[in-house]
């Protein structure tokens, strides 16, 4: 019966074409996602087009999607930079019969079929804040650098961090909050400035993959061995700093798996196997993955530290 559904929406001999848009192509996080996506594409025999802005730029994402509507693809999967803006374009794609998935960061819920949710905001926020509190021994000042004030996931995560903070750690104070726009140099400058301006700061939490190494670099250059770094990032880029003891922990879901899952879901969606009301999906080496409403859930976040970081190559 599944076979039949597949032939309905993709005629025999016609390869499924999936267009996948990251927020920024040069970002290691998305490079890791792409790895998983490529792996899945090869396994499933689908054509994967991977394109997006070189540096995070909402307008460029819109243009890529617009062009793919013209080109005609089967599924468009977007890691959304600007929620409101891209939703209009995604709705247009759906009107033209293209299936739409969001991953990593969500659009408005009526603009897509499914969201591949790498982790719930609560999960991330709690994990980050608990790890931070562990490093700070439950007291002192810390600062926050996030990737952007726009992106939906950033808003949700920083809110979750703060919720956890007020809920559980009364002796910890958030003294500075910056947005580095996903740009390493900005993260570097902001971290340097934070250290200079706040002599008592004990920890910097960077919720931004490309921003983490520069943050650690800035801390290292300042010579302040009492300041530590934790945050969201990829393991390989942070390995040296973790071993040097500047960075204490890197929190992340497995982003290779995120890309992998996205392509699996996309193919299922294109072939009509993923339908409303489905509660799970079979995702190759990941096994059965839970679906909650229109969210496909990747699972709980992962903590990389001195003990395990060298085992990961992304």
């Amino acid at each position, binding site marked *: 019966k599944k076979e039949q559904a597949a032939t309905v929406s993709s005629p025999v001999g016609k390869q499924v074409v999936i267009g996948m848009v990251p927020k920024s192509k040069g970002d290691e996080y998305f490079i890791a996602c792409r790895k998983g996506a490529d792996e899945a594409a090869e396994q499933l025999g689908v054509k994967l087009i991977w394109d997006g802005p070189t540096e995070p730029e909402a*307008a460029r994402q819109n*243009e890529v999607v*617009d*062009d793919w509507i*013209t080109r005609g693809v089967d599924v468009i999967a977007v890691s959304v930079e*600007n*929620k*409101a803006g891209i939703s209009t374009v995604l709705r247009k794609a759906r009107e033209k019969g293209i299936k739409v998935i969001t991953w990593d960061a969500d659009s408005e819920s009526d603009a897509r079929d499914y969201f591949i949710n790498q982790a719930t905001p609560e999960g991330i926020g709690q994990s980050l804040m608990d790890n931070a509190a562990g490093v700070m021994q439950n007291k002192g000042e810390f600062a926050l650098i996030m990737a952007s*004030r*726009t992106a939906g996931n950033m808003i949700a995560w920083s809110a979750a961090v703060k919720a956890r903070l007020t809920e559980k750690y009364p002796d910890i104070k958030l003294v500075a909050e910056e947005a580095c726009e996903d740009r390493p140099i900005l993260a570097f400058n902001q971290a340097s400035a934070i250290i200079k301006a706040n002599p008592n700061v004990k920890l910097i939490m960077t919720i931004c993959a490309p921003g983490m190494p520069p943050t650690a670099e800035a801390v290292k250059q300042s010579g302040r061995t009492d300041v530590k770094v934790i945050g969201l990032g990829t393991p390989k880029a942070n390995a040296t700093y973790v071993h040097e003891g500047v960075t204490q922990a890197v929190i992340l879901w497995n982003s290779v798996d995120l890309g992998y899952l996205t392509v699996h879901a996309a193919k299922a969606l294109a072939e009509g196997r993923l339908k409303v009301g489905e509660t799970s999906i079979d995702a190759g080496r990941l096994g059965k993955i839970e679906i909650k409403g229109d969210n496909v859930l990747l699972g709980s976040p992962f903590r990389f530290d001195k003990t395990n970081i060298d085992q990961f190559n992304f």
Partner: protein
Amino acid sequence: MTQNALNSVTMAGGRSGLMMRLLPMSQQLVVVVLLAIEIIIFSIVGRNFLTVENAFEVIRQNVEIGLLALALTPVIVAGGIDLSVGSLIALCAVVLGMSWQDWGLPLGVAVGVALLIGTAAGLLNGLLITRLGIAPLIVTLGSMSLFKGLAEGLMSGRAPFTHFSTWFNELGNRYLFGFLPEQVLIFVVAAIAFGLLLHRTTIGRTLVAIGFSFDGARYAGVPVCRRLLLVYCLSGLVAGLAAVIYVARVGEANAGAGRGYELYAITAVVLGGTSIFGGRGTVAGTLLALFAIGILRNGLRLADQPAELAGVLVGTLLIVAIIGNKLINQLTDLSAGRTLSIRRERGNPT
């Protein structure tokens, strides 16, 4: 006898008469050829490239930069430059968002405010240039920083403005009769308006004169300051308009809007054959160049190629077009009995 001399010169000029008409256009011819090559290649390697829809799509995606390029054409023809337009898009977009979301103005009025701010900013540029006689490059280099800084300052520490009314958002994404994007209509109107302004009115003629020789125009009684004020105001107004369209299309107003657009727009104007020294230039050339650049990006994507290639190709396009133009000029010179080296000597590269 004098009559005779006149005749003989006229005859000699007969041939160069045709050349005279064509030579200033040669850059446009080169761009047309390059454009044709692009179209042929992309209709082979790209999917759904050669469709009416896609043609409109190319325009739609380039409307903001296109508008800037249109407004910059008379500025550059008049011997000026405006580097501030990109930053001005950011400022106007932010002002649009603020006046709607923070000050609670109706969106229509907020659009008006954005256009007003744009025009005022253009006026500021124009006044500094004409009243104080500061070079346009310097003035607009300064105001570029200024506008950008203002936009960032207004936005500092806050989230971009989003969730504009549906009608507004659709302005940037709706299709009239099912295929004609609304902002393309605005662009076409603007293109015609600027074409007429530059080539069919006395104002355009005086702009050309100012571009060739500021002093010469003044001695001919051209109100140079008023004309320059006009083009800079128009450039500001159009930047405001581009900001509105950008916000409507992308659905987001923040300080990053329009970043780097000034250089894209100038590239288009120059590629279209407008002389950076002023005087020479056509709106038609600018339009051609816009297409040549826009199609590059669009076609690459339809051919499933990474968009990074576009940067290399735009640069190459510009240089190839200019070299092609130079070569044509040299060849026609050669056929008229001049050597290559002469051109080179005369072309003051500075």
